[in-house]
């Protein structure tokens, strides 16, 4: 006589009601998808924001005193500082022992009346060729390279700026209103940062052409490894008419803003998981009630309560394994789509991938789904194990 294992019986039982089993698997799968995407968003957002901030090339930014939100905008999106600092501030900064290097910057903007219906602002970032490229060593060039002469009439364009202006190395660029021609000497590769939309020019040339000699709008400060950045920031606050923007502060502020959104998404995930738990309980319990007599006959033929419990529990485990696998497949394959949707919802998102799904996260999600499934299966399995053979067989005609 051919023996049949308890796992085969469980699998056959699930196949008897294919539609119900499939719907339950889909329900578990959707919950696992939401959970994996949420956990992926948690670690992806942090990682992308950290990368964005590291790509600034400096840990502290000094700007002229003004609205801190303008300073944050300047750092994260590009923009114009409305006030100026004196260049002498650089010597004060360099005298601090925590400082490894500094790079002065001057942002200038001109109104271009020939953009759109009512004109628009063009911005130029003056940078020091001796210090800025070293601080931004991760920037790669698609064409050309950095300028060397701080007074030359040349420009390096971020990829998107070059695309918008349709510029290549050797082309000319005109500063509207001032009729200053610049030669394009470099086009950066796409970096996924605000540098993509920036037009970099030599700082001395920009100061001279805009009548801002000796003036700066920002100074990027690279801090020594293991230095006490907080102590440095406190001393920088003592400098007159400047404000200090720490990248760590910016990160914390953004993370606290995003925390609200994360709590909302987490709530949705919890609700989805609860619904899928109820779905599992319902499916297995229905299956137990439908097989009331069958379970009674199995017990009358020698099956012990533990055997029945194990069989029903195995059905739950099979459903959860399949649902978990489906959810992880969805989360992994649709991570980019989820990324796009989140970008539309959040007011600020970093440039890297927002959904980071790795092996550890997949295992965690799988373990959570399996754990929830096992808990959900306890009650139906317990009910099945308690079935009395004679009662169940007598109830056949009821």
């Amino acid at each position, binding site marked *: 006589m051919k023996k049949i294992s308890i796992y085969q019986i469980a699998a056959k039982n699930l196949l008897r009601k294919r539609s119900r089993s499939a719907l339950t698997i889909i329900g578990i799968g959707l919950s696992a998808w939401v959970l994996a995407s949420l956990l992926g968003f948690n670690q992806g957002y942090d990682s992308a924001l950290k990368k964005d901030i590291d790509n600034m090339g400096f840990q502290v930014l000094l700007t002229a005193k003004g609205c801190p939100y303008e300073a944050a905008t300047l750092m994260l999106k590009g923009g114009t500082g409305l006030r100026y600092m004196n260049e002498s501030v650089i010597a004060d900064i360099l005298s601090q022992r925590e400082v490894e290097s500094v790079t002065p910057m001057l942002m200038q903007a001109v109104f271009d009346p020939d953009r759109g219906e009512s004109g628009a602002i063009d911005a130029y970032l003056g940078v020091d060729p001796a210090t800025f490229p070293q601080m931004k060593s991760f920037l790669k060039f698609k064409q050309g390279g950095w300028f060397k002469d701080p007074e030359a009439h040349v420009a390096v364009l971020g990829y998107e700026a070059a695309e918008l202006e*349709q510029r290549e190395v050797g082309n*000319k660029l005109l500063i509207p209103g001032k009729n200053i021609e610049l030669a394009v000497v470099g086009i950066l590769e796409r970096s996924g940062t605000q540098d993509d939309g920036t037009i970099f020019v030599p700082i001395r040339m920009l100061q001279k052409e805009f009548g801002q000699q000796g003036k700066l709008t920002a100074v990027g400060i690279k801090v020594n490894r293991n230095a006490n950045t907080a102590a440095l920031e406190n001393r920088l606050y003592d400098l007159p008419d400047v404000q200090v923007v720490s990248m760590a502060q910016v990160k914390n502020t953004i993370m606290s803003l995003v925390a609200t959104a994360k709590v909302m998404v987490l709530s949705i995930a919890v609700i989805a998981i609860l619904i899928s738990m109820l779905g599992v309980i319902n499916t297995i319990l229905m299956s137990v009630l439908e097989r009331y007599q069958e379970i009674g006959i199995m017990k009358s033929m020698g099956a012990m309560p533990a055997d029945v419990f194990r069989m029903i529990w195995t059905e739950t485990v099979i459903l959860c394994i399949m649902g978990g696998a489906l959810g992880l497949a969805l989360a992994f394959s649709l991570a980019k789509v989820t990324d796009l949707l989140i970008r539309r919802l959040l007011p600020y998102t970093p440039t890297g991938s927002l959904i980071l799904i790795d092996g550890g996260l997949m295992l965690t999600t799988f373990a959570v789904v399996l754990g929830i499934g096992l808990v959900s299966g306890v009650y139906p399995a317990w009910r099945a194990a308690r079935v009395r053979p004679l009662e169940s067989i007598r109830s056949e005609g009821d």
Partner: protein
Amino acid sequence: MKKWLVPFIVVTWCALPLLAAVGCELNDPDRDVKRLFPESTGYRTTYASIQKKGGAGLLQQVEQRLGDRFKGLFETADVPYTLYTIVKGQEAIGYIHGVNQKGRFGGIQIVLALDLEGRILAFYYQRLTNSDARLLRDPAFGKQFIGLDLRDFNGYDVASGRAEPGSRIAAIQNPAPRAEDDFRASLRAVKKNLILSDEFLLGNRFLGKEKSK
């Protein structure tokens, strides 16, 4: 299940490469559509690229019709074009389409409003960098393009900037002699715009018929 799953995955993944290159969208579609088609009640926006519609074969056809190669880092087959179909009630009444063009000092964006037959109803620069830009942006310059269609550009050689004597293109006056480069770039952009509109919007109404006007 397979019937819907495969197209779903294909559509969601294909939507992503649109981010690869930048096209030419209207700065303010609601305002611009109303200004160009005052009688309109709405518009539909669609996106197309040479790469997705026909790949290398279509690029070759477009270049052949243009009489010039697509050049440089940014004039490529994967550039996504934004196409606006203007409606009045349920009925389409025209199109708006803009293209990027390399100019002497920066990117030029030329937007055309077309009727359903592909005739130019309006021409304007959405972006132009030149010290004489105001002369080219003067409405009098744009009016010279009104009523033209792709057949009018057939005899125009975009590479040399030569138009057939006596043709309507030859009659277009450059109001800014110092900006001759950008004037010629503008004519190339208009021809490219009309060819792409024919490919993406008009079902190649003018393909092979350019000389029949």
